Each structure stands twice: as C-alpha cells, then as structure tokens.
C-alpha cells in the first residue's frame, strides 16, 4: 500500500462527498436533479464539459499511446479536439433550444411519437453503459495497481461513490465533481509538462532530437504509421473520433445545464480552450514517459501503456507526485462515471417513465424518486458488466461508444435540425440502422475475432477487416435516415418543422429553464 496515494484518494473522496452533501440540499425537483436548474455559467459549464469529456482513456490512454506509438497515439488528441467544432457549429445551440432534460427531448421536439423517444432513450442508455464499462474497467485496474486492492473491490468502491453522487446530489454534485476534476487534471498535467519540458531545456527542437533516439522505434517514433498501417482503418478511426462527440449523450446533456443558447455557446468555447490545451500537453506526457520511464517499464506495468502517466510522475517527482497524479486519475474516473450514471438514469426516468409510461404527468416527487432508483439500477448493471469485462481492452470499449454515438445519434440530430422533409420513419431507421450496424460490425471485427489465440475474445477469422466500424456505419446511419424518409411517403409536418426552425435558431417559444 502506497500511503501518500491512499491519503490523497481519501481526500478526494472526502471533498466530493462534502460537495454532494451541499448539492443534495438544492436537489429538490426534477429540473434541479437533471440539469442543476439550468443555472450554470458559461465558465462553470465549460469546465464541467472538459471534466465530463477528458476521461481516463484520454489521460491514461493517450499518454500511453503517444509513449508507445509516437505520432499515431496523437491522432486521438487531434480527433477528440476537432470534434468540438462539430459540436459548436452544428449542434450545441439548436440542442439547447430544443431540448429540456435529455437528448431524446430534442428529437421529440420535432416528432412527438413515443417510439422515437423510446429509441433515442435506448441509444442513450446503450452508449452510456458501453462508455461506463470502459471507465470502470480502467478504474479497477488503476486502483488495484496503486492501492493493491482486488479488482472487484476497486470497481465496487468507484461504483458506490458514483451512485452516491448522483442519487443525492444529481446534476449539481455531478457538475461540481467534474469542475474540480478538470482543475486538478489541468494542474497536474501542467506540472508534469513543465518538468518534462525543462528536461529538454525548454526547446522543442531538442525534444524532437532526443526522442529520435530515445525509444526502440528510433526514427519511426516521430513518423505516422507505427500503429495505423491500413489507410481505411486510420480514416475510420478519425471519422469516429471527430463525429462521435456530437452524439455522446453525456456531453449533450451538459448543454441543458445553462440558461440559454448563448451560454451554451460560450461554454463550448471555454471547453475547447481547456480541452485543447490539455491535448497539447499529452505530447509532453507521452514523450516524457517514453524518454524518462522507458518503453520496457511502461509495457511491463500495463501492455496497453495505461500506466505511462503515473509512472512518469514517479520518475520525475518521486512518490508524492506519483500519489498526486494517481489521485487525479481517480478523480478523473469518478467525474466521468458520475456524468454517465446521471445521463442513463435521466433517459430511464424522464424518457421511459415520465414521458412514455406516465404521458408526461408524473409529479416532481415521483420523477426525482424514479430518477434515483434508475441511477441505482444503472450503477448495479454497469458494475456487474464491468466485473465480467476485466480482460477487455479499455480503448476498444471507448472507441465503440464513440462509433455508436456517431452512427446512431448524430444522423438523427443533424436531420432533425436541418432537413425539412425528415420524418418519423426516417428517424427510426437512422437510429436502428446506426445502432445495429455499428455494434454488429464491432462484433465481427478483429477486436472480437482473431485467428491468434488470446489476441481477441474469440478465435476465428474476422468478417469485417477494420478495427473501428465508423467508416461504414456512420454513412449507413445517414443513408438509412434518408431512405426511410423517402420511401415512407409520409408527408413531413411542415408546421412542426417551422416551429423547430424558429425555436432552434432564435430560442423563441422555449420554456425558460432558469
């Protein structure tokens, strides 16, 4: 057991529980629970978006990927950031103007059919749970390594904490845990980056010159192509990264926590600066780990490279910095899983229970209590799934969530806002085909089937040759929405589209959320 690390973990648990205590006093009705009453400022929500988005996969995963594969690892950083232009230019403001609590609200603002809301809610739950399993598996491995606890115990600790934040503190607690985590993560990463840069004499050219010989890859480390040798596979990965964010339900719900579209816009701008600066620093984390920890030691700790950042902290600043960075990684995981639990629970309680079962007539008290039960249900389910998924690759699960979000959610979002002729059939087709094709292609991909024993879940020839499904499933989602609309011959409701057009562009006629 590492004592400083243990104490810092305890400090994080303590601070987040205090936040939850104060948040619980404010969480009196459905609006407070789902969206913190829509009262966050642009700055607060910008930090919370960053805290919600920069997951363990970003911090631990990208640092490791850059350390082990050089330039190819950095593709993730670029895609994860440029994705915010899609969010800002096409999605954020219309989404804020059309939705109330969930992503399904926005689609339902145009198509008031129960099946549409049902499918949108189902996609939300599916994507959030995939993403959550990835975070929990990562958390289990991290705590096991740092504190020496069993994998099962580690997953349970994180699982219990995330449930407590959400059921007592709702969106208030979730937002503040994310804000604090974003500040800690930026601070920790900045400290490491400065130390690394100092070791390279604050010279970028020195850094590159040294990296050329610092790893077993030699020159190749600095060139693309170490990991991604197949052009189509690289494009597919990049497509999923850049288009996935704008369809991730736990990111989309963050835009309902501010009072209007203008604040939603400014929060994306703040988030883009914070997230961008963080991803630039992943170069220092990755290069530093490769140079000062060494490939052998990184791989020995974890074959996927997930321990590169904590090991770098240890190499640079000894046990204290190691403990601090590990605690930051712990806070990172907590903030992300809390956001995911809240998002999935909202889809159950608001979409399935209140809107579909109760026809929108549940009382505030019923809604909040259902949301709390749903949060417990979602947590228990994810914990059980995570316990069974210990051996799955974390990055694979995250890329799956991104590909499903880009294929099943993004087409229906874009068509709902921008296409006059879009209709109910098109919306259903887009969501179903997007979900089935993205999940289906992953099941027959090299991630699941490999001819080599032990390389994937099953032994056999993969029917789909690429590791990520985006390049096929994203266009399929868009095509399905188009064909469904054209073939149904159902006339689009022009009046309804005019309403959506006015609301999404001006905010006229929307209920005040504050």
């Amino acid at each position: 057991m590492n004592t400083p690390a243990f104490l810092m973990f305890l400090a994080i648990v303590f601070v987040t529980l205090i936040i939850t205590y104060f948040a619980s006093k404010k969480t009196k009705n459905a609006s407070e629970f789902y969206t913190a009453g829509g009262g966050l400022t642009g700055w607060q929500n910008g930090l919370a978006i960053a805290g919600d988005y920069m997951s363990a996969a970003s911090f631990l995963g990208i640092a490791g990927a850059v350390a082990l594969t050089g330039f190819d690892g950095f593709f993730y950083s670029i895609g994860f950031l440029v994705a915010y232009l899609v969010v800002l230019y096409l999605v954020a403001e219309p989404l804020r103007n059309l939705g109330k609590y969930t992503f399904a609200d926005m689609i339902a603002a145009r198509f008031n059919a129960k099946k549409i809301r049902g499918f949108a809610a189902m996609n939300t739950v599916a994507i959030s749970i995939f993403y959550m399993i990835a975070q929990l598996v990562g958390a289990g491995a991290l705590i096991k390594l740092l504190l020496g606890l069993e994998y099962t115990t580690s997953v349970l600790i994180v699982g219990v904490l995330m449930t407590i934040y959400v059921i007592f503190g709702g969106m208030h607690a979730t937002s503040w845990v994310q804000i604090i985590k974003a500040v800690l993560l930026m601070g920790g990463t900045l400290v490491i980056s400065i130390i690394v840069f100092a070791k390279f004499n604050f010279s970028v050219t020195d850094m590159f010159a040294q990296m050329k010989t610092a790893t077993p890859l030699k020159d190749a480390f600095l060139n693309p192509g170490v990991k991604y040798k197949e052009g189509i596979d690289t494009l597919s990965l990049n497509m999923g990264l850049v288009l996935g964010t704008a369809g991730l339900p736990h990111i989309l719900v963050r835009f309902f926590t501010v009072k209007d579209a203008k604040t939603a816009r400014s929060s994306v701008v703040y988030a883009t600066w914070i997230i961008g600066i963080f991803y630039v620093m992943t170069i220092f984390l990755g290069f530093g780990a490769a140079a000062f920890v060494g490939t052998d030691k990184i791989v020995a700790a974890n074959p996927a490279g997930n321990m590169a950042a904590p090991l770098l902290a240890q190499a640079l600043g000894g046990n204290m910095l190691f403990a601090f960075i590990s605690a930051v990684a712990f806070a990172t995981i907590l903030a992300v899983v809390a956001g995911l639990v809240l998002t999935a629970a909202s889809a159950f309680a608001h979409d399935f229970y209140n809107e579909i079962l109760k026809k929108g007539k549940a009382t505030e008290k019923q809604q909040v209590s259902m949301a709390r039960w749903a949060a417990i249900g979602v947590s228990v389910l994810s914990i059980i799934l995570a316990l069974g998924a210990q051996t799955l690759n974390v990055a694979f699960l995250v890329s799956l969530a991104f590909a499903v979000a880009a294929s099943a959610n993004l087409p229906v979002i874009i068509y709902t806002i921008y296409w006059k002729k879009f209709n109910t059939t098109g919306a259903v087709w887009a969501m179903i085909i997007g979900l089935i094709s993205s999940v289906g292609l992953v099941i027959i991909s090299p991630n699941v089937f490999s001819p080599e024993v032990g390389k994937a879940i099953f032994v056999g020839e993969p029917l789909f040759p690429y590791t990520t499904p985006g390049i096929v499933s994203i266009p399929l989602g868009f095509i399905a929405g188009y064909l469904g609309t054209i073939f149904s011959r159902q006339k689009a409701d022009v009046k309804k589209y005019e309403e959506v057009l006015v609301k999404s562009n001006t905010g006229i006629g929307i209920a005040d959320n504050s």
Partner: protein
Amino acid sequence: MEAKEINKSFENDYSSIVQSSSFQALLSEKKKFIIPFTIFFFCFYFALPILTSYSTVLNSKFIGDITWAWVFAFLQFIMTWGLCMLYSKKATKFDEITKQIKSERGIN
C-alpha cells in the same frame, strides 16, 4: 377546445416568423457562414490522416527533427481555436438579428 385554439394561433405565429424577412436574413447569414466553414474544417481535418496514410510528404523535415506531420497536427489545434473564436464573433451578429426578430414580435 380552448387549449387547441391557443396552440393553433401559436403555430400560425411560427409560420409568420419563418416567412418574415428578418428571419430569412438570419437563416441566410448563418448558412453563408456555417456551411463553408464546416466543409473547410472537415477537409482540413481529414487531410491529415489521408496524407499520413497514402503519402510520405509529411515525413520531410520542417526544423531540426520536427517533421511536417507534427506541424500539420499542431495546425489542427490552431485551426480549432481560431474557428472557435471566429464563430463566437460571428454569433454576436446572429444574436443581433435574433433580437430584431424578437422585438418585431414584441417578445423580449
């Protein structure tokens, strides 16, 4: 019955807003800005993986051991921040037109 009528008058309101010249001006301003810039950032973004996958031009040196691939990768960050700020600047103009639409209708 009454509720239905209110609803109907609201629907007519949305149609008349859509037909108003100020709303049409808002839509065309937005289209003129958003469509070309969206096409531009997608092209700029996908140019990087396409060039790294199907050519080696980016492997040539820029300064010292820094290759063009890293320069292009860093330009993606500059591009994102730049377009982000440009959007916020442009959006204040959209806000002004929206304000005008609202004041024409007596909505504040």
